[in-house]
């Protein structure tokens, strides 16, 4: 986690020092690899990330299912600092077909 990212994200959030400046990076670079749309997100916090921390993200798909005719996937991603400390655990459910949302949100 570099200082520039922390400062930019802190400014965006309107705080002196952001607690989880790694969150957006994780979402963008790890989970936004396929065209999906957010349905649900659960995040557990264990240790704030600091500038200079080197972290490893590891994740897997833990569920694939169809609900009300829509295809969903649930991912779980954990962030660990280089000393092994668990920083956070993210569980995110996405709809695999954006068309389902586009058809539903016709007001957009």
């Amino acid at each position, binding site marked *: 986690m570099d200082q520039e*990212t922390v400062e*930019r*994200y802190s400014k*965006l*959030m*309107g*705080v002196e020092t*952001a*607690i*989880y400046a790694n*969150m*957006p*990076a994780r*979402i*963008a*670079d790890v989970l*936004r690899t396929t*065209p999906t749309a*957010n*349905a*649900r*997100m*659960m*995040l*557990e*916090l*264990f*240790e*704030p990330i600091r500038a200079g921390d080197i972290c490893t993200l590891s994740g897997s798909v833990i569920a694939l299912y169809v609900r009300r005719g829509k295809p969903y996937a649930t991912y779980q991603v954990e962030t660990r600092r280089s000393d092994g400390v668990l920083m956070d655990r993210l569980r995110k459910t996405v709809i695999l077909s*954006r*068309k389902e*949302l*586009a*058809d539903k*949100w016709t007001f*957009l």
Partner: protein
Amino acid sequence: VDLPVDAKSLAIGQRVSEYTINYSADHIQGYETAISTRENFHNSSEKARESGFAQPFASGTMIVAHTIENLLPGIFGEGWTKAGSVNAAFIRPILAGSRVLLAADIVAKLPRGDDTLIVMQLSASLPSGEQLIAGSASAIARG
């Protein structure tokens, strides 16, 4: 762990915090720029249309980000930053120009060792009262 708030000072039904977010086009764009260099349906009209949407809209994760950074750390301190959780289902999209009230109301107090787990209902609503998420959050308070 530094727990600044005493659980005895918190009551079920109490609103512990609220925070207003102005989802300006600049704010949405700033968030997307911070998280990705790629164009997507949150920051590009063309990408939005390709996905079947008439216009871009804010990422639901922005609500989670504001919950983490703005709504609860000032109340719970490390009871949030080192033991907090947030769980949100995204109900409706947030369009540029929206003014959203993010709030946390206590729904349960559960013993956790010598301390207390404070469980909150998390809401995000437009001025019309329309809810944008169904969510919850939890943090640890002293005692």
